[in-house]
């Protein structure tokens, strides 16, 4: 039982106890308390706000099981996805967490879209740029294994109509509903992207970054800048739920010198792992 579950259970027990005690809280019992004491203060509080306590405790007792029903399957699904990714990491990539990263991207729902839109508006305002950000579909990082950025808030835009507007391998996979391998991208480790001036078109670094963006389906430099460490090889495949609806994208990034996706056995087992994600999506 997690800490949150324990807290909810305790809250439910306390509320149920108060509800059970409330019918016995009346004037005659209050007068039995003599002098100042914690018991008298508590009893007075219960007596004076009897109706409010009844309403609040009733709501808590009624809502907590519903909250459990909503959040418990989500927690379980998250745990399952984490276990699947852990096993993939160990079995397919020999636990090389420094050079391999597995990410589950999920389709953004309406609330998440609004949040993303607000973030984009904020970024526009920060850079003093006019115009509205493009309103479209997004996939965002749901879970991640490997490397040092598990709590990434990265999201990628995808257009349901054309590949040309999609951002990153995740966006392309989500739009095209294909399995994609992008490999042998230029190594950008030695380039400080935060200081790079993209207007110097003849610079070797700029050429390398442009090549990376073109091959890696990164449509604008700002998106590349936000990537903490650009990978050398990518694998992306579409994720479906148990009913067959597309719900997200699995992306494996690799910084290894040799592309791990050239290995046929790895590819076969990756397909097998994809099926395991379906009940959790």
């Amino acid at each position, binding site marked *: 039982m997690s800490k949150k579950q324990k807290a909810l259970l305790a809250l439910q027990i306390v509320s149920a106890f108060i509800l059970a005690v409330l019918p016995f809280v009346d004037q005659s019992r209050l007068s039995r308390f003599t002098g100042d004491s914690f018991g008298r203060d508590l009893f007075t509080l219960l007596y004076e706000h009897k109706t409010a306590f009844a309403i609040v405790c009733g709501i808590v007792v009624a809502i907590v099981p519903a909250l459990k029903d909503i959040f418990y399957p989500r927690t379980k699904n998250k745990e399952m996805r984490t276990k699947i990714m852990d096993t993939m990491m160990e079995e397919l990539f020999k636990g090389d967490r420094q050079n391999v990263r597995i990410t589950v991207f999920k389709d953004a729902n309406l609330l998440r879209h609004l949040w993303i839109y607000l973030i984009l508006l904020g970024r526009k305002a920060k850079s003093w740029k006019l115009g509205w950000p493009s309103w479209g579909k997004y996939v965002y990082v749901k879970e991640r294994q490997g490397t040092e950025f598990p709590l990434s808030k990265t999201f990628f835009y995808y257009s349901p109509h054309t590949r040309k507007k999609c951002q990153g391998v995740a966006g392309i996979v989500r739009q095209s509903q*294909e*399995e994609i*391998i992008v490999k042998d991208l230029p190594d950008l480790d030695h380039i400080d992207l935060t200081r790079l001036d993209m207007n110097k078109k003849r610079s070797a670094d700029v050429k390398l970054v442009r090549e990376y963006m073109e091959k890696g389906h990164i449509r604008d430099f700002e998106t590349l800048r936000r990537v903490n460490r650009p990978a050398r090889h990518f694998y992306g495949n*579409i994720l479906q739920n148990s*009913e067959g*609806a597309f719900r997200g994208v699995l992306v494996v990034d690799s910084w290894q010198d040799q592309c791990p996706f050239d290995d046929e056995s790895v590819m076969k087992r990756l397909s*097998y792992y994809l099926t395991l994600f379906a009940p959790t999506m």
Partner: protein
Amino acid sequence: MPALAKSYVQRPSFKPHDFLIDKRANEVRYVPSSLVPTETVGNVGPTRLDLHFRYITSESPASKKLVFKGIEIEVGKFTQKILAISFTYDPTYQSLLHGFDEAAKSVRKARGSLSKPSIQKSYELIAEFLGIAKNDFNNPKMKADLENMFLAAREQKRRD
């Protein structure tokens, strides 16, 4: 007395290049494994054949079936992948084989209305597979079994 229905199971053995959609120097695109049939289960009756395609991820069927000249194609609700193909024929061996050709044509026709290359390729794989199934039905043992089944069906009909 020969049975009046025959079952057929086949696991298509596709190779990686069969799934290939596009290949460039740094990029390879494949049909996702969820759109590639892993097993086909068929039920051959005297006048009707039902083929069910199984995939690594299941999918609910769409409410409407595609129908082309008596060939019924059941597709998935979300991906449009082919879940089942059924057709009727005269109770003769030649008519059954002709049904496979018609089914493959129908699948290719249905493919034309799809926009995504991945699902188009999935339909191509199914059309290819129908050719393989036709060859399976062409082998001498299968042919003898089927002809016996049709004969028994015709006799049964005559008696009724």
